[in-house]
Every structure is written in structure tokens, then in C-alpha cells.
């Protein structure tokens, strides 16, 4: 399950972005703001809520996967 960590946008069709999490892919809806392929985002409740600068992605994953 990958819901809380950032994923990378690999495809955009209209307002639906396909997001890659490494182990799986999910879709997120773009409802506000501009997004491009390659950007890292956080999805919650099926919508993209925030962009994550690439240099912060590692910090997210470490923190969330820490026990």
C-alpha cells in the first residue's frame, strides 16, 4: 500500500494523473494547480493535494517508513 508517501507523475490524461510509487501505480485527480510529468505529489482521498520538491522525497519516505 502506498498512500502516504510521494509518488511520481508518469502520465496525465485530462485531469487524471497516473502516479508511480515504485511498487505500484495509482491514479490521482488534479483539481487545483498545474502539474507536469516527473513531479512528485501526495495523493489523499483520490485527489492530488500537494507537490513535493524532489529533494524532499527521501525525507518523506524515511520518516513515514520509520517504525
Amino acid at each position, binding site marked *: 500500500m502506498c498512500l502516504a508517501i510521494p509518488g511520481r507523475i508518469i502520465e496525465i490524461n485530462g485531469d487524471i494523473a497516473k502516479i508511480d510509487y515504485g511498487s505500484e501505480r495509482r491514479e490521482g485527480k488534479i483539481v*487545483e494547480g498545474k502539474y507536469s510529468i516527473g513531479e512528485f505529489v501526495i495523493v*489523499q482521498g483520490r485527489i492530488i493535494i500537494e507537490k513535493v520538491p524532489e529533494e524532499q522525497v527521501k525525507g518523506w519516505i524515511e*520518516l513515514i517508513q*520509520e517504525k
Partner: protein
Amino acid sequence: MKEEVFFLKYAFPCSFILLDRKEITKEELDKLEKAVVNEEVLDREYLEKIYFRAFQKIEKFANELKKDKWDLEVLKKYFIEEHNCIINEGKYAYAKAPESLKNLCKVHKAKVLEIKDEVLIVEYDGNKKRPVMKLLVPGVVVNDIVTIHYGYAIEKL
């Protein structure tokens, strides 16, 4: 509002992190979502077990105030004020947290700019915008002030 209901509204967005950490199952997450939407009063021990990180901080805060951790005023002060202070000061796991994570973890007061089906577009902290789920505040209208936590609007102020 019952203490358990208030607590779950604010803690619910964190459940996705618990799922990622495999501390809860998808079935539990679905149950929590149903409970938060229907304002069900869940067992206190169960909530304390699932959200043990939150309660570690709430308990300490309640002790400082010489009140019970389940006191509604304690919970309100915790989620509206203390929780953001902890994040700003980089206490606990927040010491290593990236800025974008801290920003989502904080509870912000936000103004509803637009409603798109199940999503609210809100503005907070001056000019920051974020889409959040309307799920927990079904009756809000444009210009209402709500609190937001992660990807959810939590309550109308």
C-alpha cells in the same frame, strides 16, 4: 461534540500513514472512515492504541495543563495550537521532517474559495491554496472558514 468524535476528525487524515506503516489494515481504515463520517463514538482504548503517537503528545500536554487527556478543551487546544507548535519546534519525529510534510501535518485555518463536487479549494497562510476533501464538512459554502489537516477539511469554525 463527543470527545472521541472530535479526536477522530482531527486524527483521521493520519490514518493513511498508519496504513503505509502497516500498523492498521485497509479494512480498519475503511471502518475508521465510516466512523468519522457518521460521527460514531469509538472505544477510547482502541483510539489510544491506533493513534499512540498522538496520545503520547496529548498526554504530556494534558499533564502540563493538569487535566485529563480526554478533556475536550485539551483536545481542542492540542489540535488547534499545540500540535503546530510541536511541528514548528521540530520535536519528536518532526526533527527530520521535510517542509512539505510539516506543512501538510499542521492544522491550518482556511477559507473556502470554491467547491468542486466532493472537493473544496481552500486558501490558508496568506495565499497558499490546497484542494481538500469535503467529506467531513458536507454543509460548507464558499467563504466559510474551516480547519484543514492533510487532505481533509476537518470542521467549520
